[in-house]
């Protein structure tokens, strides 16, 4: 017996170690799933503890590496690589001016949208508080799209909170540790989010793939779904607030594995492979946050001032009246008796008819006799038209 164990010692140790891990896997798989995606199982207490220890062991070194890289880049970008800075500054100023004008234009639409939402008792969720965090590491595997950020539960972060950048959705928090947290990227195979196609308003579920692509695979073929359409979060997954940009449709192809569904590939708005800083959404509210309210008020004031200036200019310049009442008075509607031609139902699209002459003279329409009645040498006598016959304009 002793010789058996000594002879097969190596193989037995291997079998024992592998068997122990297989049992451990079986125990972990029995844990309930978490979140929106059934493929993502939650960790048990002991497993979560083990993961916390491993992350805690690696995080200080990741912080050190990240800090060193940041300092080197800061020296390079802040002191050495300052070429074209003035031109960039000027270009940015121009962009700010242009964006202010655009903001003023959008403010009116936004205010109208809010009024309509209030009328419909629609509960819109606005992002009220965020925590900015820096990405300090990854999972190190292209099969697991996980990022490590430098903020954790000490900043109020909790699992399942959405993570975004100003460009768009990034993912959600998976495990949160005291001083760090794991972000599960939206293009991980176990990730998923409820989305809506911006123009067609078709709802779907976007999932990641092992190749790191974002795909919607639960939609039937629809001729309205075309490349270039923007995809935003629908808010239906109870993780992301509504309206966060996710990406743009890159291709629409039949899914050979799941007929008759289509495989819609989406190009993410956020650069998921080169993330430096992210925002974790820690709170939403049904009203606009104070800073956004101030911005909206300022934009509305700018829009009102621009409209007033435009009205003043319009008063000084000759122009067609917008409505038939202003043109013909309230008791003279623009109908077939006063206009000629034009499109039905659209005021001022035809030409106005000639009004009856009050004091006719030789220049009045119809005062001059026809040419075949005139005689050479005879004196021209003005004729009083017996009845006004307006000149018809061919349509």
């Amino acid at each position: 017996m002793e010789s058996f164990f000594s002879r097969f010692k190596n193989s037995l140790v291997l079998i024992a170690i592998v068997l122990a891990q297989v049992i451990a896997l079986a125990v972990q798989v029995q844990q309930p799933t978490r979140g929106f995606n059934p493929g993502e199982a939650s960790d048990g207490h002991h497993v979560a503890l083990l993961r916390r220890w491993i992350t805690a062991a690696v995080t200080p070194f990741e912080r050190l590496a990240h800090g060193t890289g940041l300092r080197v880049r800061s020296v390079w970008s802040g002191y050495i690589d300052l070429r074209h800075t003035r031109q960039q500054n000027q270009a940015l100023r121009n962009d700010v001016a242009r964006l202010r004008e655009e903001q003023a234009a959008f403010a009116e639409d936004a205010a109208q949208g809010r009024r309509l939402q209030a009328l419909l008792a629609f509960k819109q969720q606005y992002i009220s508080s965020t925590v900015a965090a820096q990405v300090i590491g990854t999972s190190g595997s292209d099969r697991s799209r996980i990022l490590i950020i430098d903020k954790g539960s000490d900043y109020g972060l909790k699992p399942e909170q959405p993570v975004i950048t100003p460009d768009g959705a990034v993912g959600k928090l998976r495990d949160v540790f005291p001083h760090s947290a794991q972000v599960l990227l939206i293009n991980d195979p176990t990730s998923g989010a409820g989305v809506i196609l911006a123009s067609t308003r078709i709802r779907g579920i976007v999932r990641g793939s092992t190749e790191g692509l974002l795909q919607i695979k639960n939609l039937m073929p629809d001729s309205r779904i075309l490349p270039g359409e923007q995809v935003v979060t629908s808010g239906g997954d109870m993780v992301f607030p509504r309206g966060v940009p996710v990406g743009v449709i890159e291709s629409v192809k039949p899914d050979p594995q799941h007929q008759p569904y289509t495989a819609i590939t989406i190009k993410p708005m956020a650069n998921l492979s080169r993330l430096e800083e992210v925002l974790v959404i820690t709170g939403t509210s049904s009203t606009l946050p104070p800073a956004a309210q101030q911005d909206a008020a300022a934009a509305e004031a700018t829009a009102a001032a621009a409209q007033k200036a435009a009205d003043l200019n319009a008063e000084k310049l000759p122009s067609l009246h917008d409505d038939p009442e202003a043109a013909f008075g309230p008791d003279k509607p623009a109908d077939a008796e006063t206009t000629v031609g034009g499109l039905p139902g659209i005021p001022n699209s035809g030409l106005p008819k000639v009004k009856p002459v009050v004091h006719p003279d030789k220049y009045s329409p119809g005062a001059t006799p026809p040419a075949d009645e005139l005689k050479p040498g005879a004196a021209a006598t003005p004729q009083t038209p017996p009845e006004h016959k307006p000149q018809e304009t061919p349509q």
Partner: protein
Amino acid sequence: MAEHSYTSRRELDQYGFHPAVTLLAPLVCILLQAVLPKMFPWLAILDLPLIATIFFAVARRSPIAGTVTGTLIGLFQDGLTNHHFGVNGIAKGIVGYIAASIGFAVDVENVLNRILLVFSLSLLDSGLLYLIEHWLLANMTYPLEPLHELIRAVANSVIAIPLFYLLDRFRTRE
């Protein structure tokens, strides 16, 4: 007349490492694997912990040590991902065992042998991960991408050669 020694070839070729090197070298590999893809995303295709597993298993030529080293490195890797604990642990444990067993039969000082060893064990690691996901975890969405795995094996082989030479400097004959 040929010289005879009481020391067998197996004992002659077995190497040991300072405990600090044994602990720190795999840790540095895991850390680099976690940090480098942040700056260079295409480096995520590499598997530096796998290279460390193969190196220590081959250098020690002890299947038990190779299995234990591979398992610990794999479990540490699992802790940084969203995989279950044991996925990489099982795969790298088996790779460590096989690498140590091959170390007996093959001259692993030869560069060509090292390249072939890392290339084939990298493919084996990918195959084991596929089997674990499909058979043990019933994850049918886990794809088999032969071309991607071939590229990964080639990349690991290319990186392994300078890394092996670097780690050779820390080994001591037992």
